[in-house]
């Protein structure tokens, strides 16, 4: 709904009432929670060697995407996302509720889909062998590309598939722009609900990290972690990120709307803020994070921070400088367990923050550098941080519902 109610008594309180996770650590909240607490990491150093990636843990797609025809129309990133979106709708108790789904906002943070590597490689090889006729590329593409591949690559077709498979049809917006798409999706969805422009929204993103075409993009500036896995804070001179595979979606809604339908919150989404430092001079990211931190709202002592820190430099060191200024907050870098899921990284952080608050514990640290420490008390405030590998800084405050 675009309409704003005429009498707006003030910003509405917004709850996270649904979480859908399908990641390299498994499907569902328990599987991910247990793996994090057991410090289990699903990482592959060999399949795409020398590149280190986190493979997705396979699921039975039929449970969330019942039509095989729908599954065939999607590439992996769309299947992962559509699957996780279904889990989130189930978790919120709105799956199949046409009345609610018909007015539900959807903001998806998306990249693009896999290329057909065999087609690309064949064209390049044939070209290298001297096929340079004007019609060569055109004819090969016309003959070799699957007609439906385009739709499996199009950024907004993850949202399109979620609409088709799950019936989320109120509004549909797809944000692009790597990590920033993730925090802007949360920021705008929250602003719409808080401002009375909407009651409920589905937000999230997905990535399949086992993609050579995507590795090429990040290899252009040597961002890929190579040879050997190390936790995010322990990469030292071997900076970089291991692409991760995950679908992470959340249902957020106004407290009033949730209470009216008897929905229980995992946590409250209190604030999401974002900016884009130019990053021309050292320290800009640290300063921007500090500014965002000051805009979050009242922070109590002894909270926690869940960061999507990538392992890329110099941004990870700049973020580390920021974290060291806030030593009272227990830190968890989800990039260690999940890798870098790019557009999905911030939604994944939000999901794990809400899950931690609902379970009354922060998951285990996993860090040989001891930046991450145990947290013995139930967290009531968790700040989620996203600092993009190249651009974009975002932050959210997730709190226990009072």
């Amino acid at each position: 709904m675009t309409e704003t109610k005429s009498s707006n008594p003030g910003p509405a309180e917004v709850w996270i009432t649904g979480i859908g996770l399908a990641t390299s650590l498994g499907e569902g909240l328990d599987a991910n929670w247990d793996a994090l607490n057991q410090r289990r990491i699903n990482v592959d150093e060999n399949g795409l060697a020398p590149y280190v990636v986190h493979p997705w843990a396979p699921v039975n797609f039929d449970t969330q995407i019942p039509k095989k025809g729908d599954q065939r129309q999607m590439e992996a990133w769309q299947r992962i996302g559509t699957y996780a979106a279904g889990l989130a709708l189930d978790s919120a108790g709105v799956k199949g509720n046409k009345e609610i789904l018909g007015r539900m906002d959807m903001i998806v943070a998306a990249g693009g889909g896999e290329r057909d590597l065999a087609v690309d490689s064949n064209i390049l090889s044939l070209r290298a062998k001297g096929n340079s006729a004007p019609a060569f590329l055109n004819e090969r593409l016309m003959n070799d590309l699957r007609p439906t591949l385009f739709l499996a690559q199009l950024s907004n077709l993850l949202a399109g598939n979620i609409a088709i498979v799950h019936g989320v049809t109120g509004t549909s917006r797809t944000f692009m722009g790597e990590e920033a798409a993730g925090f802007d999706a949360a920021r705008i969805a929250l602003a719409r609900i808080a401002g009375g422009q909407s009651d409920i929204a589905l937000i999230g993103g997905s990535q399949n990290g086992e993609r050579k075409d995507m590795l090429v993009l990040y290899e252009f500036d040597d961002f890929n972690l190579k040879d050997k896995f190390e936790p995010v804070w322990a990469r030292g001179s071997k900076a970089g990120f291991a692409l991760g595979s995950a679908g992470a979606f959340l249902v957020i809604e106004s407290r009033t709307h949730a209470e009216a339908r008897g929905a229980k919150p995992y946590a409250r989404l209190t604030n999401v803020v974002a900016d884009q430092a130019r990053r021309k001079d050292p320290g800009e990211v640290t300063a921007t994070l500090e500014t965002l931190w000051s805009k979050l709202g009242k922070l109590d002592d002894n909270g926690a921070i869940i960061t999507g820190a990538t392992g890329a430099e110099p941004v990870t060191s700049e973020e580390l400088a920021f974290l060291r200024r806030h030593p009272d907050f227990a830190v968890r870098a989800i990039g260690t367990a999940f890798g870098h899921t790019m557009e999905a990284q911030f939604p994944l952080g939000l999901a794990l923050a809400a899950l931690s608050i609902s379970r009354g514990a922060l998951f285990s640290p996993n860090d040989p550098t001891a930046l991450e420490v145990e947290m013995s008390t139930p967290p009531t405030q968790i700040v989620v941080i996203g600092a993009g590998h190249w651009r974009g800084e975002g932050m959210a405050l997730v709190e226990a519902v009072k």
Partner: protein
Amino acid sequence: MTAARDKFGRPIVVVTGMGVVTSLGTGKSDNWAKLTAGESGIRTITRFPTDGLKTSMAGTIDFLPVQPSSSTDLSERLADIVAEEAIAQSAIGTKSDFPGPLFLAVAPVEIEWPQRLELGHDTGKTEFDYDDLLRVSGGGKYTRYHRRFLFGSVADYLAEKFGTKGSPISLSTACASGATAIQLGVEAIRRGETDAALCIGTEGSVNPESLVRFSLLSALSTQNDPPRLASKPFSKNRDGFVIAEGAAALVLENYESAMARGAAILGVVAGCGELTDSFHRTRSSPDGKPIIGCVRKVLADASMESDQIDYINAHGTATPENDKMEYLGISTVFGERAKQIPVSSNKSMIGHTVSAAGAVEAVISLLTLEHQRIPPTINYDVPDPAIPFDVVPNKARDARVTAVMSNSFGFGGQNASLILTREPI
């Protein structure tokens, strides 16, 4: 003039600056003159060989002195031009200091064939795969391609150049993207987050693979000769859309703050509506309900009845499916009036600027309000009896126009509509 708030108590959102570039030319004046003269910007593609393609014409922009090496380069260049024009007209802020956020509708970004071929050549092999490409990608030789082919790269450039505030948003809702960018700006101003927003739609994607992709979906016209006759919205012999390049920018402002700084008001974004179709990835629900719902939502958001709309700037792509469904949607909401109200398609002249279309057509709708003259649907020689719209055939028409509905419907079930008025209502 009335209060600075609408009937819902929200800040009224006005337009104080516009910029546009299409295959017809650069800037509002040039485009308006050619649109109202019924000229076509569709031409035979010369940027790359079209041998082996079913479609060899498009609304290309090849009059700029830049030879783009990728669609993203051209998208950025076009967005830059239209933002300059819009900001200059609005005279808002100071140079490189736009006082609000950026909402950018842009095509999904990817490494393209020139770069892929460059990598392939760099392997030094004649038989190779992606592992070989990966091996030559690193080491700093291609750092610029990382910057260029990030999805956020165009917004990154624009945010820096124009000094927009906060995290710039790059978005895609397929053919509705330009309208969505405007909608996001309207919503931010209505929420009181900002008094101004820079909303841009840009499209520079006429390249071999994009033509092939749409061809394989049978979406493009193949009536290549002569190109100017290819785009035939609402005609019985329509056979698909003509892909085109273009861009448009709008400076949106809170009416109150725009008046306070003495800005000229070019028009009002009175309403935005959006409703998703879950029927199929590329086809509309046969009952038209999502389009009908979208049109009803935009009317409700503007607090208007259908009889207050004087002109519809149609999505009108000229695909057999779209034009039929658009008639079903409009006629269901407008009733008998659907046959009387002027409904024209700019795409008959400029082609389908995909990600930019919603923004380009919003600018043209505002020019229609300014000049009280409706651009025609050209190439309308064989009416489709199943679509009895008054399409303003072939010749522009003077008319009293106080409110325009501009529609955008896209792949993935993306439906978005805007209502633009000359004055606050």
